[in-house]
Each structure stands twice: as structure tokens, then as C-alpha cells.
């Protein structure tokens, strides 16, 4: 039985169990994974970008790729959480978008797929 079928489950906007906070966390995680994938491929394809992402020389561009992805994830999480924290949002849309972004992020980190995107 889901919340729409269960009369005992409160779905009042502003209630502490509002699913907006969860939707914000899911979508932000999807965004972070997608950015990780995009930067992985972009850094591989552009020496200039790879050089810009070389935040810590012993680790190389990996340091920048992951630092930027984590920063985007956390910033997106903070912004979305501030907007959705006490709201019931269109959870199905938010989670579907999050899963698409997660799948793209996973795919883009796979080197043969990255090579395909770069036309190698």
C-alpha cells in the first residue's frame, strides 16, 4: 500500500516526512554522478581541461574531476534541499531524472563509451 492508498499516512506539506528532502538528495546525487562522468570524458578529450583539472599534481586530473563533481553534488544538494525540504514534490519525476543522470554518469565513466563519445 502506498501513501496515496493509505489514509493513515499524513502527507501534509511542511511535515517532517515530506519527500521533498529525499527527492533533493536523490536528484543532487544523480547530478553529481553525471558531472563526474562528463568531466571524465571531457578531461580525457581535452588536454587544456585536463590541465585545468590538475588540482594536485601527484594525482593528476583525477583530483579536479572528483573535486568538482563532489562540489557540484553538495551545492546542488544544498540548493535543492533548501527549496524542497518541507514540500511534497513530484517525486516520481525527480527520482526518474536522478536515475537517468546516474545511468549516464555510470556509462560515461566506462572508458570504451567515453572513447565512443570522443570519436576514437
Amino acid at each position: 500500500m502506498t501513501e496515496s492508498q493509505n489514509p493513515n499516512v499524513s502527507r501534509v506539506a511542511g511535515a517532517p516526512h515530506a519527500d521533498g528532502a529525499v527527492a533533493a538528495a536523490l536528484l543532487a546525487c544523480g547530478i553529481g554522478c553525471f558531472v563526474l562522468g562528463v568531466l571524465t570524458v571531457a578531461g580525457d578529450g581535452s588536454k587544456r581541461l585536463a590541465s585545468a583539472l590538475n588540482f594536485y599534481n601527484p594525482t593528476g586530473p583525477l583530483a579536479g574531476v572528483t573535486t568538482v563533481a563532489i562540489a557540484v553534488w553538495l551545492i546542488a544538494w544544498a540548493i535543492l534541499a533548501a527549496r524542497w525540504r518541507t514540500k511534497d514534490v513530484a517525486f516520481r519525476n525527480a527520482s526518474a531524472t536522478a536515475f537517468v543522470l546516474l545511468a549516464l554518469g555510470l556509462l560515461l565513466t566506462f572508458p570504451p563509451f567515453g572513447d565512443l563519445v570522443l570519436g576514437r
Partner: protein
Amino acid sequence: MGVTTREFVTLLHGMFFGGFFLMALCGAFMLLLDWSDAKRCDAHAVTPPPIPAWQKFYFVALAACGWAAVLTGAYIIYPWYRAIAPAGADLTLYPKALLTASPNTSGWHSLGMEWKEHVAWIAPMAATMVAWVMTKHRAAWNASCQVRNAVMGFAAAALLTAALAGAWGAMIDKAAPVEGGRTMRLMENAR
């Protein structure tokens, strides 16, 4: 019998942080499967029980192990792995150079390490999100089947990416171990 500093740190990264992370993710996934029972969730949505302290500790430790694994991997071990070998150097101390020196082993780097070093980061991100929802928003988990499915999906993604990273790491370290540094004696040699 001894172990070098680099071997010891690699053990900490893979066997301790990575191993615990993977085992904890498996455990968390099983817990989530158990907790996703609709009748149980409906009952808990009406009268939510307090979240036991051990569960909070478990999820925090889970995420912490994941971050410790990727951070030690990227900032301590990966620099040893990718260090540029000087001309004429012993390549056993330069795993990337050793692997890419032969077409028979270059795939361990060009596919294995190139994939592992990036995909591994998805695991702690997803695990942190799952841990946060399960410790801070358990009511939303209990109240919504959609929330449960979505969180379980991300937990599965964390498990998959951690397993990929762990498996590649183990195989790459077998093909070209990260070695070097001071040797720590664990036991006197057998007579």
C-alpha cells in the same frame, strides 16, 4: 616476513576501508530489503519507532569507510601507481609503467584503472545519500513506496560501483602490485 609501507597502505585502502565498505553495503542492502516490506512500513508510518543508535552508527560508518577508501586510493596510492618512471628504472616500482610497457598487460591500465579510478567515486556519493535518508528521513522511507524503490536503486548502484572498483583494484594489484617504501617486519623468519 615483512610488508612494505606502500603494501601496508594498499592493504588499508583495499582490505580495510574498501572491504568493510563493500561488506557494509551488502549488509545495508539486505537491511533495506527487509525494511521495505509494505506492511511494516505502513505500521511504522503511523507510529514511527525511534531509530536505534546502532543503525545510525552503521550508516555513518558505511559512508565514512567509502570516503576513506576513495580518498586514500586517489591521494596516496594512485600517485605511487602513476609516478613517471625515470629512464632505466626498475618498473616493478612503477605499476602504471609496468602495465603499459606490454600490450599483454596494458588493458589493466587503459580499461581497468581508467574505469576504476572514476567509477569508484559514485559509490560513496550514493552511499552517503542512502545513509542520510535512512538516518534523517526514515519517515519518508516508511511513508512512500516510491522513496523506498528510489533509495534501494541508489544503494544497488553504490554496491555495483564499489564491487567494480574493488574487483578491478584487486586484479590490477595482482598484475602490478604497488610496492616500495620501508619494510616493516611482521615476524621473524622461520628457521
